[in-house]
């Protein structure tokens, strides 16, 4: 047993050091959100002497994070629900259904997954401007669905492609049409793949910055990341207030990450690879 520990201890030590490098800045920001500015400067990483929720209150109301939060929730919900639903249908088409032109369509969808937002942002900006759709939810939702769908389609396609064919054949023999086979037979099996897709699209949309920065001019339409960026420009010297704002932006993704960790990591590693 002692020998075992002698072998493990140096490993724990190195791991702990690198873990602290990741954790300390985040921890410091979290603690700062509950402190006063002077307290932060004196001891940046300690627990607050007196816990205060005042920073959150001020960020939420004075900093308008209540509005940014609502906008982020509206945009993210719309994008996640429609992208995932459409991706299940199109992934099913790719993986299971007869579809002439599949060989051409596949690389076409792959293109959308590989290009950066910079490749599409300029025309989208001009069009939304011309249509008078800037400063609306449409300008934030539709392009985000477009980019999410290409990954979503490929992700779901690879699931449906590997689904057991006997099951599909049996369902057909029992009289299921394609629509019924999808929702009654295959979709229950696709839950893990769907969950991964939901958490990834949720995270990408929630954290999306360039699109929201470009499409939105009015404060009332800002999403959380853009709201935080402008907030930072305005309250540079007010550390505790900014920390509270940052925590409000980060908390939802961190919570979802902790709850759905395995799906997240598998999706992000798989996503990097599948591309």
């Amino acid at each position: 047993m002692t020998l075992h520990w002698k072998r493990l201890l140096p490993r724990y030590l190195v791991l702990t050091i690198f873990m602290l490098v990741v954790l300390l800045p985040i921890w410091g920001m979290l603690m700062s959100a509950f402190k006063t500015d002077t307290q932060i400067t004196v001891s940046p990483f300690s627990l607050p002497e007196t816990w205060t929720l005042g920073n959150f209150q001020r960020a939420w109301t004075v900093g308008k994070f209540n509005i940014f939060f609502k906008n982020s929730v509206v945009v993210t919900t719309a994008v996640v629900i429609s992208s995932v639903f459409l991706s299940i249908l199109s992934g099913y088409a790719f993986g299971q259904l007869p579809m002439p032109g599949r060989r051409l369509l596949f690389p076409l969808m792959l293109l959308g997954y590989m290009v950066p937002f910079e490749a599409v942002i300029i025309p989208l900006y001009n069009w939304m401007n011309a249509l008078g759709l800037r400063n609306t939810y449409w300008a934030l939702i539709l392009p985000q669905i477009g980019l999410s769908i290409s990954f979503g389609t490929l992700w779901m396609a690879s699931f449906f492609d590997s689904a057991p064919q006997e099951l599909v054949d049996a369902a057909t023999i029992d009289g299921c049409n394609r629509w019924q086979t999808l929702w009654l037979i295959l979709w229950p099996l696709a839950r893990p793949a769907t969950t991964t897709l939901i958490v990834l699209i949720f995270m990408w949309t929630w954290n999306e910055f360039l699109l929201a920065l470009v499409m939105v001019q009015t404060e009332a339409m800002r999403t959380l990341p853009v709201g935080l960026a402008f907030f930072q420009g305005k309250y540079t010297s007010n550390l505790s207030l900014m920390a509270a704002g940052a925590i409000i932006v980060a908390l939802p993704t961190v919570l979802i990450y902790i709850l759905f960790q395995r799906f997240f990591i598998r999706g992000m590693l798989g996503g990097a690879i599948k591309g």
Partner: protein
Amino acid sequence: MITGKRRYPGESNWKGWFYLLPAFLVYLLFTFIPIIETFRASFYDWNGFSETQTFIGLDNYVNLLSDPLFLKAISNNLVFIIFYSIIPILIGLLLSAILTGKPIPGFSFFRTVFFLPQVISMVVVGVIWRWMFNPVSGPINQFFSLIGLDQLRQAWLGSFKYALPAVGLIGSWVQYGFCMVLFLAGMQRIPLEYYEAASLDGANSLKQFLHITVPGLKSEIGVAMITTMIAALRVFDLIYSTTRGGPGETTLVTGFLIYRSAILNNRIGYGAAIATILTIIILALSLLIRHFMTEKPSEAI
């Protein structure tokens, strides 16, 4: 590659298209056509609102090659590759090396933390590190004072000398956990017996690492390299929320230059040309990824 499945008797050959169509239309309108339009616009001179767009052929591209701003931005992106790609991969390999052998109890907790920066908004990461690097009250300068090295205090993000490496290090901070988790997943594929056999043959840990671990992780290292390089080329949010390209143009990157030219200064064609170059580089790298896919990385998480 997706193979597609059989058609049942009496079924329309076009059935797949009905299911594909809604997604495909949204994709065409909001992704594919804009990609083509960006490419087209890069051959024109246009301010974004006037009626006329003047065709100028390759002029935008030719001008770019002699534009010091563009060259600066590209070279900064290359510097970021060191910080986003090379440093994190080396740290990831180092951590994997010390973790060879039997699984470590409690490791899943470490993994949760290591991956954390990947899920946080880059604007939040920017806010965190602006505070860490704050010249007066930032913990980094405070730390140097604490250990009596006051001369090391810097205005990190405001300094012509240190702003670029400082922002780069933030990138390393974000990426190394990702590399490590990727490598550890791959290491589960390498049979433990290899290491045992090597130990019996008297190979030390360094030799085992170089001759067993690194070759075994070849495909993961390739994937990590390209993913992090793409991240280094795309960097935008972090620059926006830390330095906005400053001081001067010290931390200017292509993503930021596209935003500045096309959106802020209405030089649509010029911005589109930069976007096209960036897209082509990123596409080329993404296609390279597939080259490393021949050996499928382990799904065991």
